[in-house]
């Protein structure tokens, strides 16, 4: 129990940020995010954008897997739908980028509903495998459909805003970060509504939820739709960021990456999706840095980078699942609790 947090209304109980310190920290974080591009090097801006895109996608997967309990290994494939839609619209229609992103997200949501249809009959592992099958089919479509450019994929022009091309990380940062911020905020608020609570009920026990009067098919499909809408938006941002979309841009490994991100971060918490995605994006960079440090003493370090990265990736999944199943978010909560209760202990 926390001390000194007496709540006198339901609104206070439901608030997203419940202490003054937390609100202050959020404000500080926003200020830091605004100032960041003016002080950081392009490399760090690049990483920040990449982190933001991954946060968006991981949050989407968290809605589906962490909150609704439907495991999906198709997040990367859903992202590819969004990315291709945005690329095709940008090349052939030339519509404004915000509209493209939205259309990409909505189209991906439709695809997600299609993939989610088996979710009423099968669940758990079978559903995970069904989403693998769906990503194989989507990969095949993108690799063979003339509109999506086959194996070469598509190269697209940069997003334009008031005649200015957004082609550097510095400009894209102002596109990607606000969109991600809105998406995360939307997800956090979703779970204060009827729909979000229905998702949580389905996760905890779907048959009980049905007995309580929650139409399973509708809410499961809704969860798929919301999650793949997020994936589609993230894929669209990804397309504007890299500006080349190929069938190999979104392999199955990426789907595993997002699942790993929410496991490492903590399933079923918004903070977990953010922490996990940032952490998993930064680990390879950290390894690259270490490899650079070691190279003078051991010249082959860079050659070992790829396999070591694979091993570290796997070990993180295994290690977190065995030793810290609630992820980084739980560690963060523990730290918070320590300071709340200090100097007392429970």
């Amino acid at each position, binding site marked *: 129990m926390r001390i000194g947090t007496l709540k006198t209304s339901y609104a206070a109980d439901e608030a997203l940020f419940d202490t003054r310190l937390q609100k202050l920290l959020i404000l500080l974080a926003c200020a830091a995010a605004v100032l960041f591009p003016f002080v950081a090097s392009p490399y760090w801006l690049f990483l920040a954008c990449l982190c933001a895109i991954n946060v968006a996608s991981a949050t989407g997967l968290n809605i589906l897997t962490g909150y609704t309990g439907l*495991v999906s290994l198709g997040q990367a494939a859903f992202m590819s739908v969004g990315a291709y839609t945005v690329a095709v619209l940008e090349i052939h229609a030339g519509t404004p980028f915000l509209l493209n992103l939205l259309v990409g997200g909505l189209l991906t949501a439709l695809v997600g509903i299609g993939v989610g249809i088996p979710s009423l*009959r099968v669940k758990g592992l079978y559903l995970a495998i069904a989403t693998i099958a769906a990503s194989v089919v989507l990969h095949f479509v993108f690799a063979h459909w003339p509109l999506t450019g086959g194996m070469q994929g598509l190269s697209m022009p940069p997003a334009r805003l008031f005649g200015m091309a957004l082609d550097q990380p510095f400009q894209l940062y102002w596109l990607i970060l606000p969109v991600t911020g809105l998406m995360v905020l939307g997800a956090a608020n979703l779970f204060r509504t009827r729909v979000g609570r229905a998702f949580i009920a389905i996760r905890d026990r779907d048959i009980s939820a049905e007995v309580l009067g929650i139409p399973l098919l509708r809410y499961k499909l809704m969860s798929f739709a919301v999650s793949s809408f997020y994936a589609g938006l993230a894929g669209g941002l990804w397309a504007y960021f890299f500006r080349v979309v190929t069938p190999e841009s979104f392999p199955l490994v990426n789907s595993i990456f997002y*699942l790993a991100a929410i496991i490492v971060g903590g399933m079923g918490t918004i903070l977990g999706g953010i922490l996990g995605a940032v952490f998993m994006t930064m680990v390879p960079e950290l390894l690259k840095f270490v490899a650079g440090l070691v190279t003078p003493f051991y010249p082959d370090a860079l050659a070992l980078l790829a*396999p070591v990265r694979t091993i570290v990736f*796997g070990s993180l999944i295994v290690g977190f*699942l065995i030793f810290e199943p609630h992820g980084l978010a739980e560690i963060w909560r523990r730290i918070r609790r320590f300071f709340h209760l200090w100097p007392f202990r429970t």
Partner: protein
Amino acid sequence: MTDWLFLTEVFLAGLGSGALYAVTGVAFVLIYKATRVVNLAIGEILMLGGYAFFGAAAGWHLPAWVALPVAILAGALVGAVVERGLIRPMIGESPISVFMVTIGLGSILAGFVQIVWGADPLRLPEFLPSAPIFIGEAYVAPKVAYGFLAAMVVVTAFVLGLRFSRGGVALKATAADQAAAYSVGIDVPRVFSLSWIVACGVAAGAGVLVGAIGGISPTMGVFGLSVLVVVIVGGLDSMAGALVGGLFIGVVEAFAGTFLGGEYRFLVTFSILILILMIRPYGLFGTHEIERL
């Protein structure tokens, strides 16, 4: 007029690769039956078997008949360590968590193999007789034929062993009801360990056969995806299902690869998978579990 001889040859080649799916599928089913773990790392353990054989036969210059047991032992050892170190602590966790642990394990094994043997594809030293084999008039690649024979022997041994041996019966009892099995004196943790050891050993042996036919590379783990299709089609907890599903998927892949092109293979098998999931989610021979509140 279609060429019947050619069709037969494609069919036989499909049966050959299907037999390897079947034997790996049987290993997969063994683990699932005993421990209810869906082991996605089976493809990587298979790969490890291929590389262990390569290391023993090409690295230490051992003859093939020594290298093969070395590979199987290596697989069994990995199985034992994994069961003790990774799967045992996860008992009672949600199946999804355990499933993700095996995905992580697959990633670790793939990285390990790349560090030790490098990322380039390798060829195993030849150890199977290479005299061409004809069934009727149809030509069968000798490796495929011997692979088929070996796989069939293993699968038969499994089916018989499960039915008649003490261990097999203990395993079936554990699969049916863990608590009841415990109470009649079956050492359930030992059943868990043994099933992992045997299954991983068999998968490693299958890896040697697969490697002998197609060479070995760190991406061989993809084989595990096809095996996943096989066991879903056959039913996750059915040995017979793994056998039938393996042969079926092997033949379908061979025909799809020959008449549609290699890139259609995955599309066709995964379309079959989706179809099966829609119509019979528990597979052709699997047990339909009823969920109660």
